Structure formats: C-alpha cells, structure tokens
C-alpha cells in the first residue's frame, strides 16, 4: 500500500478523475480484473522507467497517451495470470508468434524451437523467489505488442544462432563484427599481390575523423549498407521510412563523406592530388594493409611487414 502511495506520486498533478482514469476507461483493464489503482501502478512503473523524475504533468500525460495502453494492460494482466487475459493473448498472438518465428528463423524446426521457448518465457515457466517471472512484464507499451514480440524473437534468435556462427545466408557477406572470416582472405591475397607502395597512414586518420563527425543516423545507414550489405529496402524497413528516403540519404551521405575524407586528408598535409588518388586506389591492397596494420601494434611499412609475417609464421611453425 505504501508502494502504491509512492508510485501514485508519479502522477502528482493528475487528479484521480483526470487523465489516469480517462486512460483507464479506454482500456479493457476492467475486463482483466485490473482496478484503477493497479492500472495507475503500471503506468507509474513505465513512466518511472522512461521519464526523468519530476517530469511535468502535461508531459507525463502525453507520454502515457503515446503508449499502447490496451496492449500494455493485456500484457500485465497476463503477468498477473489472469485467465481472460491469457485467452485473449493466445487468440491474438499464439499463431502469429509461430509465423514470426518462421519468418526470422526461416526454417521450420528452428522456428518452432524459437517460438516455443519464447512462449515459455512469456508464460513465465521460471520462478524467482516463488513468483512467476514472465517476460511480458518487461513490455512497457511504448511500441506495439506484436512488434515487441518480433523483437524478442529476433533477439533470442540472434543470441542463439549467431553465437554458434550459423549463417542462414549463403551470401559471402559475413557479419562485420567477427573479423575471423575476413582476415584469412586478405592475407592470402597479400601474399599474391603486394602493393607497390605503402598506404599513407593519414588516410586512416582522415577517415576516422570524417566518420566521427557524421551523425549516428548516417553512420548507421553506412554500416547497414556497406557492412551488413543490406538492401535499401531493408534499411528503410528497419527505420520505418520509405525506401527512396534511404536512397537519397545514402547518396548525399556518400558524397559528403568522400568530400570530408579528402578535406581531412589535405588538412593532414596530403596534397589534393594525393588525396584524390587515395580515394581511388585499388581498394583491395589498401584493405589488406589496413587490416593487417590494425591487427598489429607496430606500424612498419608494408614490404617489411610481409617479410616479418612470413618470418613470424616460420618461427611459429618451428616452435610447434
């Protein structure tokens, strides 16, 4: 009860018969046996999580209005093990869960596995201190319940299968965060065709600087497009915008980035011509060298590097 009083404080400024009640009336909370007090407690927990303390009443009200209240109520009622709530939840989402899992896992048995385990988590098969713990408790209504389920599925999937390096795509593009795969290939190429000249270290610095100055949205698009090799449509979907928006942004972005890099390079002392040359250099050579240099702390020029590496290899083999 004391708790309730405390949390009710989050609604200071909101009279009992005010928006709190208004929101309550709009949901089906009563159907699931949630009283107004329960409801307000739920709201309080959400606002407490996402709104800074001492937030203005109007902002709180707006925030609450932006929540998917009905779905939030359903979720919390399920957590409270309300029968009707579970009925409704299952009717609406049981099948969808499987469909979404199938879409993510792309393969029947993995999908079923995924869906079943998520379902178990939602249902709260695990107990903590004698209280059933349901994942649904972490849904706060900021997004749709269906989208939340999809995200949960996706997270679980990524955790399970990516960790086991199970690539669902036969595409050559591997996940960028693991350099293992990519490292081997450039090294082979390095031995085959050594570049004539060592790459300029200023290139790396200039690029870093240019990238750092980009807003994160743009870096995100670059990463999604060039690292993950996603299509414009996919990226647009991820951001819930139109494909053409992404296309335009990307185009502007790459032009700007190139200019920025060149600009930084000249700032660092490279001549205009050098800079532009660097932009157009045979990328494989550059890439190889970049990666090898990055992995190694001593930044000696490439030709020596090669000799060193073969020596190192030779030594290593001798040791073994």
């Amino acid at each position, binding site marked *: 009860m004391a708790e309730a009083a405390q949390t009710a404080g989050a609604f200071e400024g909101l009279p009992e018969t005010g928006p709190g009640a208004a929101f309550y009336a709009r949901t089906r909370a009563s159907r699931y046996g949630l009283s107004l007090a329960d409801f307000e407690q739920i709201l309080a927990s959400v606002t407490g999580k996402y709104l800074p303390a001492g937030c203005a009443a109007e902002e709180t009200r707006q925030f609450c209005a932006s929540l998917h209240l009905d*779905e939030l109520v359903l979720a919390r009622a399920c957590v409270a093990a309300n029968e009707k709530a579970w009925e409704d939840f299952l009717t609406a989402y049981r099948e969808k869960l499987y469909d979404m899992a199938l*879409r993510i896992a792309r*393969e029947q048995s993995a999908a079923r596995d995924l869906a079943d385990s998520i379902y178990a988590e939602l249902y709260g098969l695990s107990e903590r201190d004698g209280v059933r713990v349901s994942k649904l408790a972490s849904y706060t209504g900021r997004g749709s319940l269906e989208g939340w389920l999809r995200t949960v599925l996706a997270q679980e999937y990524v955790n399970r299968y990516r960790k086991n390096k199970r690539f669902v795509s036969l595409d050559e593009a591997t996940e960028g965060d693991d350099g293992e795969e990519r490292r081997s290939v450039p090294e082979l190429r390095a031995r085959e065709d050594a570049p004539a000249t060592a*790459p300029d270290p200023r290139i790396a610095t200039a690029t870093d600087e240019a*990238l750092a100055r980009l*807003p994160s949205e743009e870096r995100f698009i670059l990463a999604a497009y060039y*690292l993950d090799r996603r299509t414009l449509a996919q990226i647009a979907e991820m951001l*819930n915008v139109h494909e053409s928006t992404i296309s335009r942004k990307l185009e502007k972005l*790459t032009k700007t980035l190139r200019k920025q890099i060149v600009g930084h390079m000249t700032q660092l002392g490279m001549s205009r011509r050098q800079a532009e040359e*660097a932009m157009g250099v045979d990328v494989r050579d550059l890439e190889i060298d970049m990666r090898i240099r990055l992995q190694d702390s001593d930044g000696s020029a490439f030709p020596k590097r090669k000799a060193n590496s073969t020596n190192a290899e030779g030594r290593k083999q001798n040791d073994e």
Partner: protein
Amino acid sequence: MPDIPKFAVDRLRDRKAASAHPEADVLNAFSENALRESEHAQVFAHLSECAECRDVLALATQGKEEQVLEPDLAFVGRDVMVAASARPVPMLAQPRFRWATLRWGAAAACAVVVSAAVLMYRGSEPAGLKRVASDAQTPQDREMVADRLRAQGGSKESASREALDLRERQPQVESLKENSRIGGSFVMPQVATRPPDLPVASPGSKQYLKKSDSMAQASGTATHRDSAYADNDKAKRLDEPRLRERVAAYEAQNGALKNETATGQTENRTVPATVTADGKDQTGVRTADKAAATAVAGGAGAGAGNAPVAAPGPSDAVASAAAPAEQKAQAVLQKTAPAKLNDEVQSSSEQVVVAPKSALASARAENQAAGGLLVRGRQGAEWSVTPVGKIEHSPGAGEPTEIVPIDPNVEFLTVTAVGTSVWAGGKGGVLYNSPDSGARWIRVVPQDEKGRLSSDVRQIEFDDNQHGQIVAGKNEVWSTADGGKSWKRK
C-alpha cells in the same frame, strides 16, 4: 550511387560499440518511431556501432508490411494516433506510406481506367456503371463499390440493371471492333496502364490488388463481354495453340471454377476439357447446355477479348475483366441474356474458355500464355514471373494466386520449383532459393575463383533438389551438385 572507398568501410567496421544494447522494448519502440528525440538518437548511436543489434532490428522488421498490425482486440486507437502527433518526428522517421501511396497510385490508375472507359462510350451514358464508377472517387469508395458490386452479383435487381446497361452499350461495340488488330492490343487503351500496377503492388497488398482489379472490371466488364466476337479470325487462329495451352495449364492447376451456381460449376469443368481435347471451341460450346454456355460466355466474353491478344497488357486487362465477372457477369448473363450470348458465342470461331477464379490467377494465366516465364514443362505449374519481375505463386485448389515478396529491389527473370525447393533468379546474378515452397527465401551467391555470378539469370534447371544448373548472361552456365551450397562454372 557513389561508393565510399573500402578503407572507409573498414574504419567504419572497427568502431567499437560503446553503449549497452538496447532492450527489446526500446528497440521495438525505435523501429516504430515511438521514442523521444534523445532516446532515438541514442539508439541510433548504438546501432551504428553494433552489428548484432542491427541484425536484431533487421530480423524484427523484415516483411513488416505483411504483418500490418491488425487490431484483433481493437487495440488500435487514439493511443497510437496521439503518439504520432505528440512526438516530434526524428530526422529520418517520416511515416512510411508505402501502403497508402500504392493505394493512391493505383486509385489514380483506376481513375484513368474508369474515365477512359467512360470516354470511350462516346456519350452513351451507361447509367448504372458510370454512376457507380464516377461515384467512387476515393480508394475507399472504390473498394466499397467493388464490394457492393460483387455482393450484388446474385441479385436480380442489379442483374437487370446491368443487363440494361450492357444492352445499351451494344451499339458501341461496333466501334470497338475497329480496335482489333492481329495479335494486338484490341482492348481498350485504358487497360494499357494496368499491368504495371498489378505486380508492382507491395507484398502485403494482394487484397488490394483484387480490389483495384474489381474496379477496373466494373468498368471493363461490359465492354469485354460484348467485344467483337467477329474479331479478326486470323488473329484467333494464330493464337489457338496458345490458348489451348493456356487453358490446359489453367485447368491442370486450378480444376473447377468456383461458381455460384452448381450447374455452372460442373459444366465449367467439362467444357474446357472439351475445348482442349477437340480444339474446337464451337463444338464444345454447342454441346454444353445453357447454363454452361452462359457460364462459358461469361468467361468467353472476357475470353474473346483475350483472343487476339498476345501482349500481356491487354490480356491482363481482359483477364482481370474476366475475374469478378466470373461471379457478377455470370449471374447477370444467366438471368438476362443467355440466348443472345449463346448465339454470339457460337458464331465466333474460337472462344477462350478461361474462367479464372481470381484476377491474379487469370492475369497469371495470361502472363503464361503471353510468354511469361512458365516453369518449364511442369504441369499445373505454380510458380511464375510477372512481367515486371516479381515472383508469383498459385497454390491452386481454392487458394488465390499471390505475389511472393522476396526482394523488392530485384527484377526476377525466371523461377523453377523442384519438390518443395523453389529457385528464383533475376537480373544482376541474383539467385534465391526457398526450401519450403516459398515461405522463406535464402539468397544464394554462386561463385568460384573467378568471382561471383553477376549476369542476369535467365534459366534455372534442377533435376532434383541437389543437382541443377543455371544459365546466365551470355551462356554462362553454373552448376551445383549439393543443392546450391557450392557451384561450378562451366
């Protein structure tokens, strides 16, 4: 699009993720543009550095359009609306109106169609239909009209009204005859605009496709029904084998037409068979009884319009005209002018008895006949490529044909199914495989020491689900013996 140099990509990759992974709740809200500015920017910052979370986001949002949030429990509401308005829109988060845009796009096309239809009648105002057409100015109206029309399919009242309209338009048919050319686009100019609309629609809009079809049909039905049976005989003869093939393909795949009348149903099954067997449509028609004839005529009405058609454009239109007509026109025809139609039907040297179940099915049939890429040599083929490079799938047996979304950026050129494994290839060396008849698709990139496959995939042949080959570009042949995991270039 200008690329960024590879070294820039590398530097991008090497940036380390500094922030913590956002939890599902936040990530989901992010993808639905439900976060506040600052939160949104934070998530962006993390995403720009964390490939794992990007993966999660991509997986969670893929194919989202098909899973348009349905208010099963009346969840939608003012909550969402208020959210949309109360929040400042983050930089990139302009609401995506792909769905809405397409509706408007095709609604505009419908408007063109309808107004062209109206214009074509040169002043003779078909009361019922025009009113219907002109009333339906907005997409919602159109759909309502379409629904109403369909619902009214069986009612006598509308039937007689339709008949009246149709008969009124008889004199106009003559002028339409002038349009007919050999193998050419006899059909009204209005429908020339249709094909791009049909397949371009986004994945989730297959229902929408049907609706827009029915709108075009509402206007197009009557015209095609009476389309000059005395069309160019030569044209028809030229197309006969194709038509037979089309009918056979359709029959093999779809079986009986689902009709409102039982007799119509039975007859439809037999009549096409007769047509195919004899190759003599007239015979087939004459031996059928009245019900059949009318049912056939309903299809044939559209079909005769089909006859001279080789191009996918008109055929799409006609096919789509045939579709809802299947229900509406048949009811109409059965009740009002069976005798007349019988005559007309018999007088033509050839009918196409294609009475498709759905606009898409018929459109697909037309595609196939028109040279759309049919699965090679497979009876009852279920997979095909539309003229604009989308993959279409007809599960058959009562299920509607649907466009299968794989990758909207790809123009597909060929599709082959072997068992439950489906292979689709397109421009730029794009190759996709679905191991489960189209539920999931995996991008396959054949490559060998010389590089990747990058020329247009023109043909795919699989003996079983392990051994197959693809023909790409100018005689590049790649083959695989392990179901696509590794490829050899010949």
